């Protein structure tokens, strides 16, 4: 930067500022993710509402516990299942909520900013399209899974405390309850489960993000119809359903590989309580479908970055 020859010496100082260095990538990512949470409060409100519902349901169940208790069979396995079921429900309810939130979030993530023209404001700041797309992909792939794990842990803790209080009030010893409900183990399995889902469903969310960066309108239709068309075409031409089964496999995140639903003794495993001994990470990570899916996820996200660079307000 040259200073005009007629400039006063003093003016050289402000006119030759130290070259600004971009904020560290982690900081840019942090503020970008916070920005998403400001805009889309449903990301944490919806799981919280689901947690409150789970708690309410549990509380209502507790008040009727004495009646149902008498009806339960003497089979200890069944009794155990009845005991842990509400805690398993919490996790499932939150997983389903997070999935719905994640899908709708991803459909809108790179479309909404073009619709309301705010993309022009975001692009006026020194944040790259790559950082923006990564921060948006992080919502369904990182933020929502963490919320599921944390909110489930807190909810289940509140529930077991409620249950303990109930037992104490009716003069029963709560120690058996704490000994029998494997909350910690359930939480570990949940952490494994959300990781499996995030990795397995990554191509799905990445696809939605890419379509939301590409489509001018009706993002949902553009996201769904091509997949449907390929499935139908395959069925008509080859009379096979490989594409459809691949899709449904990604939809459940390849989780059939991640767990064994038959115990070594041959008994079926109830999805409300999957013991830690039933996880099969070797099989999950060994399946090439996972890695092919992740490669596609990377491809879709790269396309989303490129599309965002070219895209203007709608």
């Amino acid at each position, binding site marked *: 930067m*040259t200073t*005009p020859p007629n400039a006063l010496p003093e003016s050289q100082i402000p*006119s030759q500022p130290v070259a600004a260095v971009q904020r560290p990538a982690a900081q840019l990512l942090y503020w970008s993710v916070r920005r998403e949470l400001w*805009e889309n409060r449903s990301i944490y409100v919806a799981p919280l509402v689901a947690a409150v519902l789970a708690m309410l349901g549990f509380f209502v169940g507790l008040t009727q516990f004495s009646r149902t208790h008498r009806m339960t069979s003497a089979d200890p396995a069944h009794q155990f299942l009845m005991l842990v079921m509400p805690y398993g429900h919490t996790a499932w309810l939150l997983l389903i909520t997070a999935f719905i939130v994640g899908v709708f979030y991803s459909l809108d993530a790179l479309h909404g900013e073009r619709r309301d*023209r705010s993309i022009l*404001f975001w692009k*006026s700041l*020194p944040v790259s399209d790559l950082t923006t797309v990564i921060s948006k992909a992080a919502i369904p792939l990182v933020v929502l899974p963490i919320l599921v794990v944390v909110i489930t842990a807190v909810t289940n803790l509140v529930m077991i405390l409620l249950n303990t209080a109930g037992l104490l009030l009716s003069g029963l010893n709560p120690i058996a309850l704490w000994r029998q409900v494997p909350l910690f183990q359930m939480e570990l399995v949940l952490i494994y489960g959300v990781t499996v889902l995030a990795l397995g469903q990554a191509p799905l969310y990445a696809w939605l993000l890419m379509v939301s960066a590409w489509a001018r309108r009706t993002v949902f239709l553009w996201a769904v119809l091509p997949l449907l068309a390929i499935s139908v075409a395959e069925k008509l031409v080859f009379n096979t359903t490989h594409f459809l089964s691949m899709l449904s496999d990604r939809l459940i995140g390849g989780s059939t590989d991640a767990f064994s639903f038959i115990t070594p003794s041959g008994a079926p495993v109830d999805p409300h309580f999957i013991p830690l001994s039933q996880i099969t990470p070797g099989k999950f990570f060994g399946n090439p479908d996972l890695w092919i899916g992740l490669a596609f996820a990377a491809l879709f996200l790269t396309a989303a970055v490129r599309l965002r660079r070219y895209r203007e307000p709608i």
Partner: protein
Amino acid sequence: MACIEARGLRKSFGATVAVDGIDLRVEEGRILGLIGPNGAGKTTALNAILGLTPYQGELKVLGRDPWNDRDHLMLDVSFIADVAVLPRWLRVSQALDYVAGVHPRFDRAKAESFLGKTAIKRTSKVRELSKGMVAQLHLALVMAIDAKLLVLDEPTLGLDILYRKQFYDSLLNDYFDRTRTIVVTTHQVEEIQDVLTDLMFINRGRIVLNCSMEEFESRYLEVMVNPEQVAAARALKPLHERQVFGRSVLLFDRADRQQLAALGEVRTPSIADLFVAVMGNQNGAPQGAAQ
């Protein structure tokens, strides 16, 4: 080093050529007004400069390639692309937090002090602010960024006259310091006449006039011709002629001031009058068609 340097800048959308091979050089410390009719290619040219759209030809902004290096360029370039691009859900405090978080050259205290002069509350969301207040907020954010180039594309569109006046006043008094460069497009030409240092008319993707304001003032003269001398005045080949209250006003390019003074009242034309004259001729209207 020039702030903006373009050679053969070209951009087409299908068969439509929006920017048709522009050569452009904007030095540091200038305030350039980019004036043109709707669809002239102003916004497209600015979008190319801001790295929002790919282009053909050579373009360097502060020595960088805008299309391939937008995020780094934005460390030194600010822009207000439109009046209403702040997202409606954003809170004022969040806007400050976010820009402070991502922009190393953002001076939060400065932005707060600009906002202190307005009626904008920190807890308000953009959707709760009036159009004028949103423009004030955006300007406060942009002025608190120590940028070398500020690009304003119709920054005051749809604002009332008070906000518009205030907008340019704060820009000149609180922001412009002769080392920064400002490029502004607007249809409210008369409001920026005293603000500009340079003027550029653009039409159909081409630059049709490019001069400094000093040059503008010395080159173009407007004469309200005495009725009996109209024929003599027309003989001097005016750029344009129009009627005001039944009298002819002729606009000249590079005419002799003394000679014109003999024909009537001489003054510097407004940018708007020159714009009409140049564009009228551009669009194929014969000279003096305003009769």
